[in-house]
């Protein structure tokens, strides 16, 4: 078993961006959608297209992201989508009182639920809203070098200690994955069947102990050795320097500017002009009437 880190260097616009730019841009879009509570399909669909464009520009092969998309689709379509259609939950309070024709009445075990056009449209909008955010977050593990997370957060104002913790965690990852592999192999040699955990839930969890305990206890011993080594090098007594340096390029300023502009525009539209509330377009109503 190998930890298959998803990152692959590709010469794309997304990978040429400074990592700080990508985090700031994502934060701007998430805040633009959530802080002023935007539910207007015109704004959401525009941001959805922008997000989709950036996602496609990352050029991540489908086979790499297939599993992740499956998880996102299940969450978005079944949990959020169906919930939105049946109950109209989660959206603005105006949704439940939004005047719209009934498409059909869902009858289940004596329980009747009128499904309105507004609820159907709300499900579409909510799915687009969630996918907009998911498409910005999903590419990170595939397109950002694990070695630059530490310096990225340091240059975003996070302290040396926390940035170094992050850096160290990335470096420990393959070591502990290897330890886990060795432990699994050793336990298998003693007749432990990892794939065949039987019994009740508690006993199944208990049976994971032969894998978890040795790796965890070994890591606590390793920790003491690392602390000794770092203390001997006077860690934390002076400001740290970092091996890699990050520099903004003009494209980074452009992207950060775009992100901030979108955030400000959404706030102004909602709070100054009152645009951004949930509305059902006429063409959608006409489909059912």
């Amino acid at each position, binding site marked *: 078993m190998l930890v298959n880190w998803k990152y692959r260097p590709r010469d794309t616009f997304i990978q040429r961006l400074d990592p700080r730019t990508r985090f700031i841009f994502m934060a701007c879009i998430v805040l633009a959608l959530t802080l002023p509570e935007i539910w207007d399909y015109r704004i959401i669909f525009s941001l959805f297209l922008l997000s989709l464009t950036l996602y496609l520009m990352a050029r991540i092969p489908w086979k790499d992201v297939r599993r992740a998309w499956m998880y996102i689709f299940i969450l978005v379509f079944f949990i959020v989508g169906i919930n939105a259609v049946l109950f109209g939950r989660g959206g603005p309070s105006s949704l439940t009182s939004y005047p719209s024709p009934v498409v059909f009445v869902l009858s289940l075990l004596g329980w009747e639920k009128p499904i309105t056009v507004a609820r159907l449209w709300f499900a579409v909008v909510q799915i687009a809203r*969630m996918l907009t955010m998911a498409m910005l977050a999903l590419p990170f593990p595939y397109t950002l070098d694990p070695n630059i997370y530490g310096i990225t957060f340091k240059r975003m104002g996070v302290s040396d200690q926390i940035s170094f913790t992050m850096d160290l965690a990335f470096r420990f990852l393959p070591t502990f994955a290897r330890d886990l592999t060795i432990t699994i192999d050793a336990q298998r040699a003693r007749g432990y069947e990892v794939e065949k955990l039987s019994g009740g839930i508690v006993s199944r969890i208990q049976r994971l102990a032969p894998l978890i305990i040795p790796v965890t206890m070994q890591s606590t011993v390793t920790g003491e050795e690392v602390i000794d080594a770092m203390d001997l090098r006077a860690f934390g007594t002076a400001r740290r320097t970092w091996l890699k340096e990050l520099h903004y390029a003009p494209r980074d300023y452009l992207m950060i500017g775009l992100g901030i502009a979108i955030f400000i525009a959404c706030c102004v539209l909602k709070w100054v002009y009152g645009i951004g509330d949930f509305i059902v377009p006429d063409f959608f109503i006409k489909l059912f009437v």
Partner: protein
Amino acid sequence: MSNASITMDERGRTWEFGTRQVVYGAIGAALYGVLSWATNIFPLPAAGNITFRPAVAILIFFSIAYGPWVGLLAGLIGNTLGDMLTGWGLYWNWSVGNGLMGLVAGIGFLTIINYRGTRDILKAIGWGTLGIAVGMLFASLTEMFVSGIDLSTALVGYFLPAFLGNFVVTAVLLPILMIAFAGVAARRGR
């Protein structure tokens, strides 16, 4: 009591943030990340939409053994690593929720003296449960803003399954981890 020596020395420095916290925060995060990812390879079947993440017990253990900062960092970074390894992207609110889970459970570090003692093990489970409740509640409630779900969906669809799954795992594995740790700490003598 040799197995308690490691905490007797540190208890007065609960909120200190030095080399020890940096290293164990990183180790906790890496372990949490690796085991979260491994759970996807050897999934534990569960009832309904409750999923079991055995790695949560590691997070609570690191919080109880090394304090709140270690718990915060292990949860925050570890959850991010686990999601990234699996290729799920970044879910900031669940990572912060996991960080809070470690932070709150880590306050229990103050109260644990004997890692083998039944009373202290129960205390640790209690702090772990409180941490799970706070962390998962935060993550579930912030989903209302992130995903636009309503309060009842946040509580019934997100919080309850996450809380129950994490609680069961912690209640089963934490005592085993604590007893094993007592033995290691006694052998190491520091």
